[in-house]
Structure formats: C-alpha cells, structure tokens
C-alpha cells in the first residue's frame, strides 16, 4: 500500500459522508480557500461547505476562471491552488485552465463532480468523460469509484500536484461517493509507490558542470520558471551563484523575478521579445547554464542556429525536459534550489581559476550590446505609447513601495509588461506563458488578491483579452477584491495585427476590436470604478487614482493603435537575426516560408 492508511480513529471512521471526507482531506493538505462553481453533481460538497468554517469558498462566474484564480493563488503563495466544479459543462469549462496550468507547471487540484457510479457510461444528464477529456490536460487524474479510496486519492492528488514538476491534477467524484459514508485516513507519511521525482542532483554531474563553468570565457545563466517553482530559496541561491561567478543572467518570461531586474548582471528577458543583449549573449556564449527553463521555441528561435558554439548544462527536475528540444552536454536532474546549492559548494571547492580576462572582455562586449538600448521608445505628443504606460505604472508603484503583484492577459501588452516592469522578487509575476491564454489575467489577479488581501494586484490587460473573462468583475465586487485592471487599449488584437503587418502584407483580417464596450461604464455596472486616460498628460493621474482607490478599478488606457512590440525574433529566425524598433520600415527580412509555418 502506498500509505499507512489507518483510520483517523475507529470511532469516527464511518460517520463522515464522502463530501465531508473530501473537505477534511483538503484541510489536512493545507487548503484554506477553494475557487468553485456549484451544480447538481457537487451539491453534497456544497452542503458540507455550508456547515463548516475551515475552508473559504470563492464563487467565480465561470469555471475557467476558477482554475486561473487557483493558478494565481498558487503562483503567488507557492501552495497548491484548489478548484471545485460540477460534472459535464463544469468540468469541460475548466479544461482551458487545466491545460494552462499544465503548460506552466502550476500546482492545482481540481475536484470535478461526476454522475453516480451506476450511471457512468450511460450518457446521463451532465455526464462527460472527465478523466478521458482531462487526461492530456493534467499531470494526472483520478476517478474515485470506491468510498474506501476517497481520502487516499485526495491526498495523493495534492502530493502529485506539488511534487517534482508541479501541475494540475483532477479528481473526479461521482455523486454517490460524495453522499455515501466513507472512511477518513490521514495523509500518508510513507513514500509513494511509483512517483518519486529526483530532487538531489548527481554529484558527478555537478562536478562536470563546474569544470565547464570555471573555464568559461563567454558564460551565461539562463534561468526559468523552474527556479520559481522551486521556491524563494532557489531565487536567493541563484543570485548568490550569479554574484560569485560574475556571470550575466537572463530570465525567461516564466522566470521573471527569479533574478532581480535591477541587478547590474541582469540582461533582461530573452527570446522572441527579449532584449538585444540577452539574445546576443545567448547566441555568442561558449558555456550556458540553463536552470529550470525548457528551451521553449519562443526562446530558442531556429534550433539549428541556437547558441551554436556553446556547451550546454541543463538542470531540470523533469528528465523529459532535458534533451527534448536541444541536446545538452551536461544534464542535471534535480530541484533548482538543490542544484544551485550544490553548484555553489562545488564552485567554492574547485581549485581551477576562472578566466577573468575573458570574462572582462565578455562584459565589455555585453555593454556594447546594451548600449543599443533596445527598449528605447519615444513618448512624444499626447498619444500614449503603451510602453510608456507600463513604464509609468512600474515607476509609480515602485515609488509607492507597496507590495505589488502583476498579472497579464496575452498579447503585446503582456510582452510590454515583461519588458518594462522590473520584477525584483519571485512569485510577483503571473502570466500565461506556455498556453498563452487570453482571459488568464483577471481571474489570476483575483486568486492573487485572495491570497494577499493587502497587496496591490494589477492585471495588465488588452482590450480584447479582458473580454474573455470579464464576468469575473462580478466576483471582484462580491468579495470586495480591489484588483486593478489596467487596459492598454489599442483597439486591436495588437499581437495579431503585428504579425499581420509583418508577415501577411498588412492584411488586417479580423484583428480590429470593433464594438468595444465603454469600459468605464462597464466597470460601474459591476460596482467597480472606471476611469480613462486619453492622453499622456492624464496617465500619471489615472495611475495614481487607480492605485489609491480601495475598490476594483478598470483603467482604460487609450494607447497608440499601431505600435509594434520590439525587439522581435521573427519565427524561424536566429537570435542574431532579431529586428529592432528602428529597423521596422521595409518589412521583415529573413522570414522564410518555413518560419511562416511556425506560430
């Protein structure tokens, strides 16, 4: 047996209903809040919720939002986010959120109602094959068919969601299992039978890595979301390691905050919309240390031109991430914090000297690249540049010194947020990276605000994305969550428009945001405050007012409609074929037909 599954006490062993067992198991796994939406199949759980105080339920307005809220909660706390939805449409609505969490390695447990066991397979009312549908959408899923398994399965779901590479786990709960009495067992203290991810790195691999790193002439540390997944200790160790080596460090979109943006050794984000210096450092490096990043195509660009002259060290907790897209020289399986601690120890005890002159020359080169000032923009006249809006938002929040969390939707605004908002700490930046789910940011912000009631939580949004989960304004109102929605309103699906401009001859097929609502009135109708900045001279005032109001706010920031997001590595191009803002006239060089096929 996987668990020392002794009943909590023989006396109360069979006094609890399945629903009560579920809630008890949640509580014993540290759940204090659950995001959900009721329906027939989960009524027993709602009934049990009604009769207790340990777990707070947040009623969302759409099940997809429940999962994103749980993601925001999880990413900002390091805990497992928890979701409760009904069978059939409740479960299918949750699927986008689950895949989002899967792609971004976010620990979530999602409880789904199911028709009673004797009706499964009969096309019963609101029946869906939830485990079938969510199998490729989750890290793992369960259908509980026996009351005796219930407690063990819920415990296991939490263990699986948070261990190794985190991810979403679905537990499908037939209604009879929830109503019938079920035994409760404590969370197991023994090892799981089969799932035991390796967290401690192999000493020999660490030694090999340090040998390479010591001899490096043009090194780079490329750190990703895995450092955040590992916990704040990993970010501290990352900073220690980068400082003791003197290496330059870049973060992926998912890794922002793992290394302080203000640090002189930080190169900014890398990849498709990364900085000039980060991408050229990646292209020119001779030794790369990838820690908790997955060589995503948005980062590597054309694979056969990716960091062509480098030896690569890749540390990841998931062996399947290693050698998946890019063959590496020194694979290290382990938890980012453990790996960094081991690297630091080995670095100290390795006698070989560093090639300091080479490193100095490398930094001189990097400073030349930096001098291009690739994120420069000109704010002239009244029309607000979207970059400027983010920059001012950043500067004003920094000046106010409040703890600030940023979530985003998906599109240009997301990239500008990544480029212009400086993240100093992990767990303060939540964005949908892998799936790129428009509609993520508002519910994610909700989850963050629930976990951090006194913090400033801002969803940097696009006018198109925000409409995808706008119903959650109702949730903000109900729970008095003072989330700020900061819309960079360019009246376009800007990211789509940008690709159409650059790759499809400026044929703006269906990318205009027509018939937009009046966001100010929309906010008001949801009991929130609406405000608008129409010109650059309004911007600071609106930002300050938005922050000062202790209520949910939608700030509609009217920005330049045709701004493009640069730098940009066009699909299928290499890091050194990046286009910068000034070069934009005359279209994109180097987009091959092969490149056009890519997303």
């Amino acid at each position: 047996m996987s668990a020392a599954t002794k009943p909590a006490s023989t006396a109360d062993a069979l006094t609890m209903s399945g629903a009560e067992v579920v809630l008890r198991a949640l509580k014993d796994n540290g759940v204090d809040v659950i995001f959900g939406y009721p329906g027939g199949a989960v009524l027993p759980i709602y009934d049990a919720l009604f009769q207790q105080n340990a777990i707070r339920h947040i009623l969302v307005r759409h099940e997809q939002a429940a999962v994103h809220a749980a993601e925001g909660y999880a990413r900002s706390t390091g805990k497992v986010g928890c979701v409760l939805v009904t069978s059939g449409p409740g479960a299918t609505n949750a699927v986008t959120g689950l895949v989002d969490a899967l792609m971004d390695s976010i620990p979530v447990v999602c409880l789904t109602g199911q028709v009673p066991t004797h009706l499964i397979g009969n096309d019963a009312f609101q029946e869906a094959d939830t485990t079938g549908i969510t199998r490729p959408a989750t890290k793992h899923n369960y259908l509980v068919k026996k009351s005796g398994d219930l407690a063990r399965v819920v415990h296991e779901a939490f263990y699986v969601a948070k261990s190794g590479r985190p991810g979403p786990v679905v537990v499908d709960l037939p209604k009879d299992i929830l109503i019938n009495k079920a035994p409760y067992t404590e969370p197991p203290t023994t090892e799981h039978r089969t799932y035991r991810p390796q967290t401690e790195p192999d000493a020999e691999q660490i030694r090999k890595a340090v040998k390479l790193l010591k001899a490096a002439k043009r090194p780079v540390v490329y750190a990703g979301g895995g450092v955040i997944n590992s916990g704040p200790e990993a970010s501290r160790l990352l900073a220690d390691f980068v400082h003791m080596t003197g290496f330059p460090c870049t973060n992926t979109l998912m890794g922002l905050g793992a290394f302080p943006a203000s640090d002189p050794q930080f190169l900014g984000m890398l990849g498709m919309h990364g900085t000039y210096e980060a991408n050229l450092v990646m292209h020119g490096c001779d030794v790369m240390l990838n820690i908790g990043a997955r060589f995503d195509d948005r980062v590597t660009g054309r694979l056969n031109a990716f960091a062509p002259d480098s030896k690569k060290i890749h540390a990841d907790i998931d062996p399947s991430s290693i050698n998946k897209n890019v063959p590496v020289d020194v694979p290290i399986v382990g938890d980012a914090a453990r790996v960094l601690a081991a690297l630091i120890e080995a670095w100290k005890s390795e006698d070989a000297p560093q090639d300091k002159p080479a490193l100095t020359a490398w930094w001189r080169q990097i400073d030349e690249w930096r001098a291009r000032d690739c994120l420069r923009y000109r704010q002239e006249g009244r029309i607000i540049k979207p970059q400027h809006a983010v920059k001012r938002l950043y500067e004003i929040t920094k000046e106010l010194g409040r703890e600030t969390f940023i979530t985003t939707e998906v599109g240009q605004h997301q990239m500008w947020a990544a480029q212009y908002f400086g993240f100093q700490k992990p767990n303060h930046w939540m964005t949908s990276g892998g799936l790129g789910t428009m509609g993520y940011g508002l519910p994610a912000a909700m989850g963050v605000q629930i976990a951090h009631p006194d913090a400033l939580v801002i969803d940097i949004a696009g006018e198109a994305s925000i409409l995808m989960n706008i119903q959650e304004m109702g949730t903000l109102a109900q729970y008095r969550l003072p989330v700020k929605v900061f819309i960079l309103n360019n009246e376009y699906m800007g990211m789509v428009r940008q690709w159409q401009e650059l790759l499809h001859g400026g044929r703006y097929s269906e990318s205009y945001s027509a018939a937009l609502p009046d966001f100010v009135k929309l906010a008001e109708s949801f009991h929130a405050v609406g405000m608008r900045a129409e010109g650059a001279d309004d911007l600071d005032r609106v930002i300050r007012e938005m922050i000062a109001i202790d209520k949910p706010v939608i700030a509609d920031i009217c920005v330049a409609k045709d701004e493009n997001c640069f730098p940009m590595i066009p699909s299928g191009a290499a890091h050194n074929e990046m286009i910068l803002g000034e070069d934009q006239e005359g279209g994109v060089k180097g987009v091959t037909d092969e490149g056009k096929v890519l997303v």
Partner: protein
Amino acid sequence: MSEAENVQRAATIAVLVENEAGVLARVIGLFSGRGYNIDSLTVAPVDETGRISRITVVTTGTEMVIEQIKAQLDRLVPVHKVSDLTLEGPHLVRELALIKVVGKGDNRIEALRLADAFRARVVDASTESFVFEMTGSADKIDAFCALMRPIGLVEVSRTGAVAIARGPRGLN
C-alpha cells in the same frame, strides 16, 4: 544537426505499471499525443496479485526521440519502471500469431510442409482450413505469412512483441 542524430533506430521498451484503470490509455495517449510511433504494444498483469502490468512497446525514432519517449513514460504517475531492452543488452523478443489458411489439395500439403519448416503448430483443422500457431520474432512471422499468402492465407491474429532481458537480472 549531424547525420548521426537523424538516424532512426527501433527500441523495445518494457514498462512496469500499476494495473489501474486508464493506465493503458495514458501510455497510448502519450504516443499519439506526442506523435511517436507504436510498432506494437502488448500488456498483461505479471505479478501474483495482479497489481502490476507489463507493457512491451516497440517503437522507432531517433536516439533523441527514444530518450524522450522513455522520459515521458517514466514521468507518468502509475509507472514503476521503464527499461530500454534494445539498449540494455541481449534480450529475447517473441510474438505469438494465429494464422488461418484455407485451401484444398496441393495447397493443404504445401501449407503443412511450410508450417513444419517454420515450427508452426496446427491448432485447428477442418476439411478446408488450418489454424497455425507460431511464436518467434516478428520477422519470422512476417516471412511465414508471406509464404502462406498465395496458398490461401485468410486471417492473421498477432499479439505484438513481448520481450525480456537475457541473464539473471530481473526488471524490478
């Protein structure tokens, strides 16, 4: 990418899994979802309690893809162990086939003669048909079927490969 990295190879992979609902769907879904080949796949419980099943899957891919397949299999929660028998040394591969041949006269005699040469056993016979049972490598069964085809082969049922490493070491 170098030539060597593009070379395809076959791999016979043994996977020990918890014998629980949906585990086969997870394995098959992984192959279809990620676009890996399945040349054959077999599964049956193998321990005395019936809690552990062994899946033998034969696949082809570049070295990098096969490494990926193994890593992906290994991270499925109900998977105990993944072993690349092809890589790990000498091993036995066997497949069982039931082969129905229909015919009269000389064809019947020829069918029996070939079956004898291939060590296929007759497990069913009627006045105009035989069912042969044979075990062996996939190649051997392919060759037998090819010879039977002009003689009256009407139906083949094959298990797909099962495999085990030679020598004293067990996979547990």
